[in-house]
């Protein structure tokens, strides 16, 4: 288990290092001058030069790369060109929205997907299965932003039960914060749940046709106990993989939903920073997301090992 973990960690550090180079190089070749974007079309040449100097854009490429990486290793993510505050602060503020939102969405989607996926597998080929599969088909086909707009129309405009968007900040009360995240979380969760339920179902069906399931039944276990003890547990590996991917997506890839609900999340921070050429925020923000995804992958890897003892000894 220990060496399995160490090997994984080493691989992950290399991934991060490679990612830092890619991120840096991509932003180097990105056209557009941050100083010009900030000062607009009336700015004079000397004003632009003064700002470039202030932003430290005149240093050689290698120096800037090394400074950036060394800074990040010490927890210094740089100062945002546009907002003029530490990038780490910006990311922390946004993560306070994105992470809880992702977590709620993931809990919702798991809470929906597991029961119906298992149910569908158990009643495979029956009307219930067909019905659930039909529904998940619709769930996958639904564009989540469209669904989000629909939710806003129903719950915010017509019923006036929930806010149409925005996030008041956790300091205005946890309940107010959660309230603002309910609709976005549902909009994010349903399509994910549909995918997850299908994966759960097919994984479980595969497992249930294995020999050891027949053995388990043969030694006298009831269908229910066999399903839960031997079936679901073994079906969890593909499901965990999808869960890990979904969490990464929910943290970093929700910019569209953030736009519909005008939530101040990580996706919008980076999207805005790109258009404003706030390069340091983009660089450091993307690196944090890469690190997060890498970390999630690592946790999923560990979870495999927890679910499947063979992996602990294997590699």
């Amino acid at each position, binding site marked *: 288990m220990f060496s399995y973990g160490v090997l994984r960690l080493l691989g992950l550090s290399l991934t991060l290092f490679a990612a830092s180079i890619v991120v840096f190089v991509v932003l180097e070749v*990105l*056209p*557009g*001058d941050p100083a*010009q*974007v*900030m*000062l*607009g*079309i*009336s*700015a*004079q040449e*000397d*004003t632009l030069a*003064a*700002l470039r100097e202030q932003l430290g854009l005149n240093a050689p490429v290698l120096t800037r790369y090394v400074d950036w990486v060394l800074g990040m290793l010490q927890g210094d993510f740089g100062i945002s060109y*546009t*907002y*003029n*505050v530490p990038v780490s602060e*910006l990311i922390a*503020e*946004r993560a306070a929205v994105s992470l809880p939102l992702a977590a709620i969405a993931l*809990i*919702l989607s798991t*809470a929906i997907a*597991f*029961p119906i996926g298992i149910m569908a597998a158990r009643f495979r080929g029956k009307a219930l299965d067909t019905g659930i599969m039909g529904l998940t088909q619709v769930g996958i086909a639904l564009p989540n932003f469209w669904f989000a*707009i629909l939710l*806003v129309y129903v719950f*915010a*405009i017509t019923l*006036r*039960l*929930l*806010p*149409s*968007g*925005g*996030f008041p*900040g956790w300091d205005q009360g946890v*309940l*107010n914060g*959660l*309230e603002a995240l*309910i609709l976005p979380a549902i909009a994010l969760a349903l399509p994910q749940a549909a995918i997850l339920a299908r994966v759960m179902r097919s994984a479980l069906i595969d497992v249930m046709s294995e020999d050891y399931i027949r053995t388990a039944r043969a030694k006298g276990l009831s269908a229910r*106990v066999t399903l*839960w003890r031997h079936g679901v547990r073994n079906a969890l590996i593909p499901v965990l993989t999808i869960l890990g991917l979904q969490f990464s997506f929910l943290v970093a890839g929700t910019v569209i939903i953030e*736009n*519909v*609900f*005008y*939530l*101040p*999340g990580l996706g919008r*921070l980076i999207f805005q920073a790109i*258009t*404003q*050429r706030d390069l340091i925020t983009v660089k450091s923000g993307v690196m944090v997301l890469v690190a997060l995804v890498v970390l999630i992958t690592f946790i999923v890897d560990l979870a495999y090992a927890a679910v499947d003892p063979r992996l602990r000894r294997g590699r």
Partner: protein
Amino acid sequence: MKVQGTLKALRSLAVGVALVVSASPLALSVAHAKSALSLGIVLEPPHLDPTAGAAAAIDEVTYANVFEGLTRIGPNGEVLPALAKSWEISEDGLTYTFELQDGVTFHDGTPFSAEDVKFSLDRARAEDSTNAQKPLFAAISAVNVADEDTVQVTLSEPVGSFLFNLGWGDAVIVSKESAAGNKTNPIGTGPFKFDRWIKGQEISLDRYEGYWGTPVALEEASFKVIADPNAAFAAMMSGDVDAFPNFPAPETLIQFEADPRFKVAVGSTEGETILAMNNESGPLSNKLVRQAISHAVNKQALIDGAMFGRGTPIGSHFAPHHPAYEDLTGTYTFDPEKAKELLKEAGYAEGFTATLKLPPPQYARRGGELIRSDLQKVGINLEIVPLEWAQWLSEVFREKNYDFTIVSHTEPMDIGIYARDDYYFNYKNPAFDDIITQLNRETDEEKRYALMKQAQEMIAADAVNVFLFQLGKAGVWDANLQGLWVNSPIQANDITGVSWKN
């Protein structure tokens, strides 16, 4: 056993979710106190220091509300006194003596005096200044403190629009003590003081009780950043936002117009929207070709098709609501046949191929398609290249690597850009430069207006660009709100006069 455990966990999870969902409506009863305003803005300002950035969003929050200058620009584009209560201009137009208001304090309590004026103007024109509108201060040769309440500004040459220039957001007065921190904690002399900023979400202001002038009616105001047109619509409809002065979803305005809860106000802006042409690029260096193109573009169809009818036709680079405006819309009527003739005369009977580089705004992206089809009919084939702003600024604006582009010039009174050397249109006409030089020197209003008319006529005759339309502005707000600006002579949301009825 395990089965039971898992099921139990799932069940309690479901209960938990249900609790959260059902508990939420209770927390929702945040009724609007009638002294608070929540106002939607499309773009979030990068920071809140109007003296250090070009983003219009900075002024949209701070102008007149948080920061004040010596003069200010009023709802119809007029110059009004602000921190300067009066002024005198010397005969030669070179010395301005400003008498300052009494009892003014900054939001941190520091008293305001002539020293602050000197500090602010000197800071804006200093060598290491990062003021985006530094040319506004270029003519200042000295700022002298005569006494605590009097400032004398000396110019090296007369500047006809100097008082107007001092009314820009970029010319506001800041305090030496707090200037460095204004980006994140703006401290001005205005009737509202900065409260807090949830990045990506909203900026809140509170009434400043120590304000020197007429107290404002609102106690607090929050500026909510909502970029998505659908979200803006939903926020207005659900009452989460009271006003959206620059509403981003023009296609939904009919719904608001039909709803008595809302008021829709359509006004004008300083945005001359043009099909800019690179006057040095191939066929476009030929005036006949540019005139042909001006005839080939159906401007009214553009306003109707790309702007939902919200826009005013213009015939030159000048705002129709300005007193010196001259109606030149008849110079190039929509006439494809005439266009073909002119192209033939210029030697391009077979037409030509060129690029049309488009920045992100809708007027450009939607308008670009229409213009391409218009020009195709006279034999000019355009390849559309969509760009983001940063790319547009470097490729089109700085490197002048383009044939056509569409952009709205939103600075007030900016016809002078046609006299700039090396500006991206590449327009060179010494006669025009002369007019602008004279205009800059002239302080007599009548003579200034005459010069402005000449300038309008000249660039129209030269067909420097195709002058498409004056960008319209549609605002939506609660019918019980009063005092919001209908027009946008500068890009600002001045809420100092806003109040709720009864």
